[in-house]
Every structure is written in structure tokens, then in C-alpha cells.
């Protein structure tokens, strides 16, 4: 299924009653089975974009939608959250089964599907643990398994590894790519980390600072499967430099703005 974002603008009213423009005329597409990363400085409306795709927010203007057949019983999207957003009162198993419950699947079927994704994400043996008993990396595995379990046509990932330490993040990126090779999900991956975006994605959508506009869509000319050795390849370095060139001035301006509202990314969703 193809993701279409067509001329989307998003304006919201903040707590002081001021109108804030989060996104301005954003247009791009994500082809089926493509992994597209969205990068931009903080407060560029990256997360707002994902909320629009997830149906957690209606665009002020423009269109967000999907093209192509959606098989019956499958949701269009499922989201992996930056702060994990696991239900603390549910065990690992219970969290992974949540979406299946809401989809009305039978108990035995839920068990079987959950087991498959617990295996895929390396959570076997942790089924009965509660989220507070797990490390950050393990928690996000639960978040990924929960999203994959409903078999969405498009997987939405909102800075999924930014709350993890650098080493865990590297490992989780590799694991995610491994999972992607096997499941071939269409993925929209939001991050502020350019290296991460280039290393993982087929194409990188570069957003400007608020209001977010598409500065460029950079294709990544790296073979699959991606390996760590590719971090030194010319194609990798060039893509990173090209994106950093676009983002640098934007990030500096955002920095000097000082009041760059903390959590402006989320602003549109409240």
C-alpha cells in the first residue's frame, strides 16, 4: 500500500491561545515495501506528520491517505512510540496482544500471533514480565512486536530508538532492518538522527524547521542488506553531508530561537 501526503498543512492553537503552524504544504509519497525516513530539526512537525498518518489528528488542509488494496482485517497503520507507550499493567504478552484484542481476534489466535512476533523480536522468555522489569531496549522490542502483531500495511515509527543509549540504539537499528528484510513492511521512520536515517532508509525526506516544509527528498544509493561497513562508503557519507547541509542552517536558527518550544513536535496532538 502506498502512502500519499499531499499538500498537508497543520495549524494548532497553543496553550497561550496563539496559532502555531506546524506543517506547511508537505507533499511526498512512500511506495509499498519502502522504508522512508523523515528527518528535520526539532520542532519541524515530524511527529505531527505521523499523527496525521495514524489518524490521531486531522490535517488543517491537504490530504493524507493510502493508495492500493488493503486486505480485509488488516489495519492501515500501527505506531511505535518514542516513549514506548506500553501499558504498565499488562505483561509483555498482554501488550503485544492489545491490538489483536481490539481487532476482535479469538484468544487462541491472539496467543499464536503474539508468540510469532515475540520470537521475531527476541522476547521469548519475557512473556510474563511487566514493562517496568525490562530495559529500555527490551521495552521498545515490545513496542515493535505490538505494532507488527496487528500486521499493519504501514508501520509508523516515531523516533523509536532516541530514548535508548547509543550502543543499544545501534543494535536495535540492525535488528529492525533484519525484521524489515523478513517482513517487507512499508515503514515511515521519523528521526532527528541523520546517520540513522541514511543507514536505514531507501529515501530520506528532509523537513525544514517550523513550519515544516519538504526541503528535499534524498535517495540513498546503498545496497541491501545494510552492513556496518557501509557507514564508511562514499554514498553514505555523501548522503549524510547533503542532508546535513540542508538541515544545518535550519537547526542553528531553531537553536537561536531559544524559545524553540520544548515538545513543539507534539504540539499539534494535544
Amino acid at each position, binding site marked *: 500500500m502506498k502512502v500519499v501526503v499531499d499538500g498537508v498543512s497543520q495549524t494548532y492553537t497553543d496553550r497561550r491561545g496563539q496559532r502555531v503552524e506546524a506543517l506547511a504544504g508537505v507533499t511526498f509519497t512512500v511506495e509499498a515495501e519502502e522504508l522512508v525516513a523523515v528527518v528535520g530539526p526539532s520542532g519541524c512537525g515530524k511527529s505531527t506528520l505521523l499523527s496525521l498518518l495514524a489518524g490521531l489528528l486531522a490535517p488543517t488542509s491537504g490530504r493524507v491517505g493510502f493508495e492500493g488494496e488493503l486486505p480485509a482485517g488488516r489495519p492501515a497503520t500501527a505506531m511505535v*512510540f518514542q516513549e514506548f507507550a506500553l501499558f504498565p*499493567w499488562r505483561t509483555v504478552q498482554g501488550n503485544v496482544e492489545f491490538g489483536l484484542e481490539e481487532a476482535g481476534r479469538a484468544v487462541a489466535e491472539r496467543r499464536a500471533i503474539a508468540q510469532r512476533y515475540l520470537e521475531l523480536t527476541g522476547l521469548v522468555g519475557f512473556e510474563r514480565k*511487566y514493562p517496568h522489569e525490562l530495559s529500555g531496549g527490551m521495552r521498545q522490542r515490545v513496542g515493535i512486536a505490538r505494532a507488527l502483531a*496487528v500486521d499493519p500495511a504501514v508501520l509508523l515509527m516515531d523516533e523509536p530508538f532516541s530514548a535508548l543509549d547509543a550502543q543499544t540504539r545501534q543494535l536495535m537499528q540492525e535488528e529492525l532492518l533484519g525484521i524489515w528484510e523478513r517482513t517487507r513492511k512499508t515503514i515511515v521512520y521519523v528521526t532527528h538522527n541523520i546517520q540513522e536515517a541514511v543507514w536505514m532508509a531507501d529515501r530520506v525526506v528532509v523537513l525544514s524547521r517550523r513550519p515544516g516544509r519538504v526541503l528535499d527528498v534524498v535517495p540513498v544509493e546503498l545496497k541491501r542488506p545494510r552492513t556496518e561497513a557501509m557507514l564508511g562508503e562514499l554514498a553514505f557519507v555523501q548522503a549524510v553531508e547533503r542532508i546535513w547541509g540542508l538541515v544545518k542552517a535550519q537547526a542553528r536558527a531553531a537553536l537561536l530561537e531559544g524559545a524553540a518550544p520544548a515538545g513543539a513536535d507534539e504540539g499539534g496532538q*494535544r
Partner: protein
Amino acid sequence: MRPVPDRTRALRRRAHPLARALGLAALLAAWEALARSEAVPALFLPSPLAVLAAAGHMLRSGELLAHVAASLGRMALGFGLGALGGVAVGLAVGVFSFVEAVGTPLIAATFPIPKIALLPLLILWLGIGEASKVAVIALGVFFPMAINTYTGVRHADPLLLRAAVSFGAGRWSLVRKVMLPSALPTIFAGLRLGAGTALLLLVAAEMIAASSGIGFLVLHAQNLMETTALMVGIVVLSVLGLASHWLLTRLERRAIPWKADA
């Protein structure tokens, strides 16, 4: 080399396990000694051992158990009704904005009334029997439960609500699978508050209009100048308070297993 000094000494707290038992024992010993010295007449201050003996006697005669059973029955019924009603109303007020608009001013207006002041009115309406006592306890428990449930529901993490919605949860699912579990810790805090209030109202109601129960026992013993029996009543009340606290703690651990050390 000068070693780096440990600067955390001012922050250190030790457990002192012996002191915990010692304080209680010392109080009892001092009380016993004072009573035996006959510096205070036994009518005003019977000795702990005498109270214990009286308790044993009242237990064997069945008198004590009858009073405890009467009190427990009233308390359980009133507490149960008040807690259920409070949780139901708190949920409704927390979930539906219309009920919130209607309900919050009503609760704010009636909550500050000391519930014991309503007992005469309740006796007028429900008669002097069990119903009025149960009702006053239920009212006392209802308010902390309703307010705590409402607070818990309204403070459910918006991120978790969004996550649930993103996985297709409807309103009923949100209530059952996110709001209610989010509210459980504050609901239990409400139960603790309610248990204290229930005990207070129980004793007061039994002192005003009853011929059984521990409140009646205490007042009746005072009228007969039976200070030991009066003391037995007070000790039983303290045991009831401790027991309800212990029970609620056990229940909370079971109901909220995801809290590291609730």
C-alpha cells in the same frame, strides 16, 4: 594520598529494628507499672494485664464477639456500598464530559458536610435500625472514593490513551483497559481514606443510636464505670483499624502487580 571522604553520612538512615519493638514494649511496661503503683485509681487507668484479662473473659462469654460481629456487619455493608457507588460515580464523572459538568459542582457542594451531621436526618428517614447506620458509613466512604476515582481517570496518561486509540480502541475499551487501570492506585488511596472514615462513623453512629456494636460497648461501659471493658472496646477498635489497613495493603499488591513495590 588523602582518600576522598564519604560525604553522604548526613543522608544515611538506618532501620533500627530493635527500637521499633522497644518503644511499644516500654509504653506498655510504663502503663502497667503506673497502674500497679496505685498512684492512679484503677477506675481511671486499669492495667494492661487487667484489660487483657477482661478481654479474655468477654471473649469467652460471647459478649465481645457479638459486638464485633454487629460492628463488622455494618462496616462491611456500608463500606462496600459506598465504595461501589463511589467508583461508579467517579468513573462516570471522569469519562463523560456531560456527567462531569453536572456532577462536579454537586460533589463539591455536598462533600464538605461532616457526614455524622446527617445521621439524625438519616434516622428520621430510615428509622433507628441498621439502615441509617449503614447509610451514614456508605456516605462517608462514597465521597473519597468518587473523588479519587475521578482524579485517577482524569490523570490517565494521554500518551497511553493515544496509543490505545491508535490500535483501534473505542470508548468502552479505553475505560476498561486504560482509564480504570490508571485509576487503580488512586482508587486504593481512596479505599484507605474511606476505611478510616468508615471506622469513625461506625463508632459515632453506634454511640448515638444502637444497642450493639463496639461503639455501644464503649459508651455503655463508661455509663457503668467499667473502665476495663471500655479499654477493651478501644483496643478492639485499634485492632480493627490495623486489620483493615493490612487487608487493603494485601489487596492492593494483588490488584496492582505492575507497581514495583506498591
